[in-house]
């Protein structure tokens, strides 16, 4: 350790003269090691004004700034020469709500000798009142131990009492419970959170026990007593039963779930620690524990006696011959443990008493009564006998070694009869759910012949018990079996026509999965089975769910692939589909808002029979069209719906709101609109007013069709030309209000469509047109989002971009700049989104840099900053001054202070390159930036100045 020199007044004054900047002040205090500066700094008022927490009322956040002065104080306090002064200063620091300051004061106390630290520890109650304790609890735990080790026992215990205080459950319901109201058990809490609480007990309390002995045990027992009482709704009525044999069946366990259990473990460990160092303290330990009265304390007492039986033989004997302890199942584990530990100490008379109780045996009549009450019938005789033998075995086993010969033989016989006693530790009661059970596995089902399988499925009856085999369990295995070998089951699918519908559905799911996995099979019998399942009416779940399974299967079968339906099955497939298109699901009530939230039509369509059938119908059209394409039949291809009139008629019917009021079905038209154009462009053009009805009474249908279209489809030119009116309408519908978070965001997708069309030259930039209207009506986030998608799109283009496309991007941005730069504060999101264009790296670098500088000057930021940082790093070699200037502006504009952390490596590269270039102005700007970064606390770039 250096021998420190006391600073002169001149030295101190010169130092202070240099500290007229908060960051320099912090730098100095963090680097100052000499503890002898403490006094002059205190005289200059350095410790008078701890910084308060910083609150952001807008974001609803609170910050706790570090205070370099208290950190220096904590360092200086290690030096014996200034420890009295350090304590005085610590006590002088005004109260604050800034917990960071108290963390440092705890460090001061830890650095001081216990006789001084205890004076500071007396201030802890006021430290704990701030509400946000951060790292303070851990340090206070350490301080408890520190004080106890230094013989400041009362100070240590008082500190522990304050920090570990147990408080009532803040969520405890007020008032008496209503009828049939379930109430969770009460959970008392600590002043510090459960994790910190447990850490203090685990890491630091042994130090307290070491110094304070039984007094520490008394403190923990009191805390546990508080926890037990505060866990009970009516502690006076339930005393002494705490049900600890349920929530803590094993005293030895260390799996803590809550504060109460943590205190049990800590009390146990404290008792063990006391007895390990002073076994003769067993009577004091017993007195402390049993004095609390509740069951858990008696259990802890038995456990403790088992640790040191030789020092309390009378006490041990007294408890082993206590019949209430012997009989009470809630003490069984600890009683047996004590018996095993004290087996060599037990006298003959006591053992005789116990053996007499064992000989009397289990109360089998009571057992039978209880069994009958639960099961409804008398227990089997062998079960009762076995229970009685097991009871005796378990009670004799702890006394092995002390048993008289005849009892020893009896125990051996019992072990032969019912096996050896379990060595497992007692467990908390728990239950698990492992899913539905099946009587056979998928492999077993596949090995069966199809006829045998059908016979089995017809005759099999699920078990009635909750955890028994079920149709759902068998169905899962059946689906897996069919999916793995679809043709094996498809060739004779007809034999399944009379089995349970739930199992038919499982078969259909199997063929659907096989189709998706492109495993071909013979569809003929499968379609026949499907048709039979389809015509089974009713709205009970089974027939309805089975029809949905048929729709799913057809939908998969019309998709292109090795397992698709063969063309000669068109008529049969359509016959089934036609029935499904008239299905009653979705019923109107499925689309009614629940608790103010309407179900998404798209999701209802996917999860309803008619909705899935509609999807299948469009796929049906595309399936037929693929056949025409395969035949190279231009005539039929151009004939559109003339070649599939059944589909056209079905679609027309579903467009009638009188017939089809479902929004879910309407969503399918929107989702598949580009493909309807592909199937028959003329029909689609004519039906635009029907699909997107302009009648205000049907505005919801128009909205749903549009939102599904714009969300799920990309903007194909030929489709957009049919929907120009809908695009205009959607732009008109944009509102300038705040946009809530939506899972699917049609407005954002509209922006994507418009940008894609503009990029392709399909849309132009002209006053009053679609694009201009969009930018005048959309909120800033949406306008920014438009540039984001444009930037992302450009960045993703691998080949060289045509000059005219780039020119369009330049024009769009410059036009927006003209508008937005007049009031940048109102256009922050949009202006900042220039970062996406800049970050794409595809635009002219000089133009990009100049625009970026304008944006940064206007709003101080460009998003996303990581992309801008990367691009500036690329450009700094060619444009050092402009790149480093832009970086400076970004950093100046960063209010939150996260930017440098996000792009720290880019910052270093950019500054290094600017310093190394030949441009003196760039070098100067880079030096200035390093200094500005230093002022903000980022000293990692100081080395670049070459000092």
């Amino acid at each position, binding site marked *: 350790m*250096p021998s420190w*020199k006391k*600073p002169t007044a*001149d*030295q101190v*004054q*010169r*130092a*202070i*003269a*240099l*500290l*007229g*900047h*908060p*960051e*320099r*002040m912090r*730098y*100095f205090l963090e*680097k*100052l*090691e*000499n503890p002898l*500066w403490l006094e002059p*700094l205190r005289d*200059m*008022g*350095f410790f*008078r*004004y701890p*910084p308060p927490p*910083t609150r952001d009322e807008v974001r609803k956040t609170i910050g706790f700034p570090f205070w370099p002065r208290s950190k220096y104080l904590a360092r200086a306090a290690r030096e014996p020469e200034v420890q009295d002064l350090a304590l005085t200063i610590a006590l002088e620091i005004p109260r604050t709500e800034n917990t960071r300051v108290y963390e440092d004061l705890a460090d001061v106390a830890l650095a001081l000798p216990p006789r001084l630290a205890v004076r500071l520890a007396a201030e802890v109650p006021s430290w704990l009142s701030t509400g946000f304790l951060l790292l303070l609890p851990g340090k206070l735990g350490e301080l408890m131990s520190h004080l106890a080790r230094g013989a400041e026992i009362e100070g240590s215990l008082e500190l522990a009492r304050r920090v570990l205080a147990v408080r009532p459950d803040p969520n405890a319901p007020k008032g008496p419970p209503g009828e049939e109201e379930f109430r969770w058990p009460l959970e008392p809490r600590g002043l510090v959170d459960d994790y910190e609480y447990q850490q203090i007990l685990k890491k630091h309390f042994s130090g307290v026990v070491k110094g304070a002995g039984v007094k520490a045990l008394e403190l923990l027992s009191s805390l546990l007593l508080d926890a037990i009482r505060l866990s009970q709704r009516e502690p006076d009525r339930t005393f002494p039963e705490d049900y600890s044999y349920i929530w803590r069946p094993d005293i030895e366990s260390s799996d803590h779930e809550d504060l109460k259990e943590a205190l049990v473990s800590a009390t146990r460990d404290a008792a063990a620690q006391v007895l390990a160092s002073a076994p003769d303290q067993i009577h004091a330990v017993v007195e402390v524990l049993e004095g609390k009265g509740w069951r858990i304390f008696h259990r802890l007492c038995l456990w403790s006696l088992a640790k040191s039986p030789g020092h309390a033989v009378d006490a041990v004997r007294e408890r082993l011959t206590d019949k209430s302890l012997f009989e009470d199942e809630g003490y069984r584990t600890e009683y047996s443990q004590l018996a095993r530990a004290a087996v060599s100490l037990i006298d003959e008379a006591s053992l005789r008493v116990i053996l007499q109780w064992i000989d009397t045996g289990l109360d089998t009549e009571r057992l039978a009564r209880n069994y009958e009450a639960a099961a409804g019938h008398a227990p089997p005789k062998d079960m009762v006998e076995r229970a009685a033998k097991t009871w005796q075995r378990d009670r004799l086993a702890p006394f092995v070694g002390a048993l008289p010969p005849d009892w020893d033989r009896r125990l051996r016989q019992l072990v032969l009869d019912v096996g050896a006693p379990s060595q497992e530790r007692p467990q908390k009661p728990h239950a698990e759910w492992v899913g539905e059970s099946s009587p056979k596995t998928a492999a077993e089902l596949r090995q069966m012949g199809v006829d045998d399988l059908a016979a089995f499925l017809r005759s099999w009856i699920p078990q009635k018990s909750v955890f028994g085999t079920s149709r759902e369990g068998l169905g899962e295995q059946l689906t897996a079996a069919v999916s793995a070998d679809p043709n094996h089951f498809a060739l004779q699918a007809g034999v399944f026509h009379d089995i349970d519908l739930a199992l038919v559905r499982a078969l259909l799911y199997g063929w659907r999965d096989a189709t998706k996995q492109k495993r071909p099979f013979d569809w003929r019998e499968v379609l026949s089975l499907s048709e039979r399942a389809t015509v089974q009416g009713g709205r009970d779940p089974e027939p309805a769910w089975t029809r949905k399974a048929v729709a799913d299967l057809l939908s998969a079968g019309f998709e292109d692939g090795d397992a698709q339906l063969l063309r000669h099955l068109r008529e049969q497939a359509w016959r089934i589909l036609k029935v499904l298109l008239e299905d009653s699901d979705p019923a109107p009530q499925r689309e009614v808002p629940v608790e103010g939230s309407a179900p998404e039509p798209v999701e209802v369509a996917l999860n309803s029979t008619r909705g899935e059938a509609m999807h299948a119908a469009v796929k049906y059209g595309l399936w037929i069209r693929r056949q025409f394409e395969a035949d190279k039949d231009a005539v039929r291809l151009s004939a559109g719906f003339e070649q599939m009139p059944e589909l056209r008629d079905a679609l027309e019917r579903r467009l009638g709101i009188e017939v089809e009021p479902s929004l879910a079905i309407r969503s399918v038209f929107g989702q598949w609109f580009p493909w309807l154009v592909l199937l028959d462009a003329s029909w689609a053009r004519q039906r635009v007013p029907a699909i997107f009805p302009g009648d205000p009474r049907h505005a919801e249908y128009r909205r749903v069709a549009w939102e599904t279209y714009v969300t799920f489809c990309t903007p194909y030119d030929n489709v957009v030309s049919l929907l120009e009116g809908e695009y205009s309408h959607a732009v008109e519908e944009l509102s300038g209000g705040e946009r809530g978070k939506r899972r699917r965001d049609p407005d954002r997708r509209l922006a994507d469509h418009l940008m894609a069309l503009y990029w392709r030259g399909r849309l132009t930039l002209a006053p009053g047109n679609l694009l201009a209207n969009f930018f005048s009506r959309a909120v800033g986030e949406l306008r920014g989002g438009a540039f984001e998608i444009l930037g992302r799109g450009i960045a993703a283009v691998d080949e060289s971009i045509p000059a005219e496309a780039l020119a369009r991007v330049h024009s769009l941005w410059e036009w927006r700049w003209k508008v937005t730069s007049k009031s940048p504060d109102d256009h922050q999101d949009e202006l900042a989104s220039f970062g996406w264009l800049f970050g794409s790296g595809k635009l002219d670098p000089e133009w990009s840099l100049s625009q970026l500088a304008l944006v940064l000057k206007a709003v101080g930021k460009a998003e996303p900053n990581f992309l801008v940082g990367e691009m500036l790093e690329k450009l700094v070699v060619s444009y050092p001054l402009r790149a480093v200037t832009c970086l400076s502006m970004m950093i100046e504009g960063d209010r939150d202070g996260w930017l440098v952390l996000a792009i720290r490596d880019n910052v270093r590269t950019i500054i290094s390159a600017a310093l190394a270039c030949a441009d003196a102005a760039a070098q100067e700007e880079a*030096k*200035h930036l*390093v*200094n*500005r970064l*230093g*002022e903000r606390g980022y000293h990692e770039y*100081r080395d670049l*100045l070459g*000092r």
Partner: protein
Amino acid sequence: MRSWRIIRWIRRWFERDRNPSEATVPVVSAPESLGTVERPPTEMPPPPLKRVSPSTVIGGPLDGRRAGIRNWIANYSLALAELYEASVRLMHEVALSGRVILVCHAVREIRNRLPEMVSGTKGAGRLDYTNRVEKIVRLWRAVGLGDPSLARSLPTASASGPARIETDRWLLVSVAKLLADHGAVRERPEETAARLFLGAALGDPARREELRPVIVQWLDVTGWFTKHVHVGLKADADHDLDELRKRFELFEMTLAALAQSFYETVDDIDAILEEANR
């Protein structure tokens, strides 16, 4: 008003001996109307400059560091920069009689004026005490309270309470308003000084307390000069010249820490830390 005459005198004296070709910054002559203009045009707060020009050695006692201070002050006020330069020359170069008082005046002006220039924000302003008091005096006399023997003729307090005297409402309002205005414009020196440091650091006003020790020392150091402006006239030899030098050095160190780049000052701090931690 008296202080501006002194400033004008210092400028004239300074310009007399200067070779214009050596000047590094344009010297703006004080306008003839200086004595009557409340705030000379050259002292209007410029937009705050974040950058300090590189230090330039301009000869004599204005070495690189002092030149840096001068140039930094000139970013905000050429007049104050000149005052600083003059005070440096008086301290180190020109054994001019009466220089202690002149230096004190110069430091006081810098202490009082620089904060508002650097921060770009004015204090609460000045109160025209003379005119306001004269106005009250006229009212006072008009209501018949101008008689020097008034005190003897006024009633005295009695057991029932203080004596009550009826007077003119406007007189009372004028006095009350003057007292209120006095309270409003009286900015504490700590607040003025805080604007200097926080303004130079582009700092968050909420962090003012962190700089309090620096502010206290600045006020103590510069307060010595202010005090010596006001004490009865003393010859140079009657001043504690060692104290003057020490104080002036701390005054310059504080300004240098603001004027130079962040890491130049950190280098100075490192030097102090090296000595302290040895």
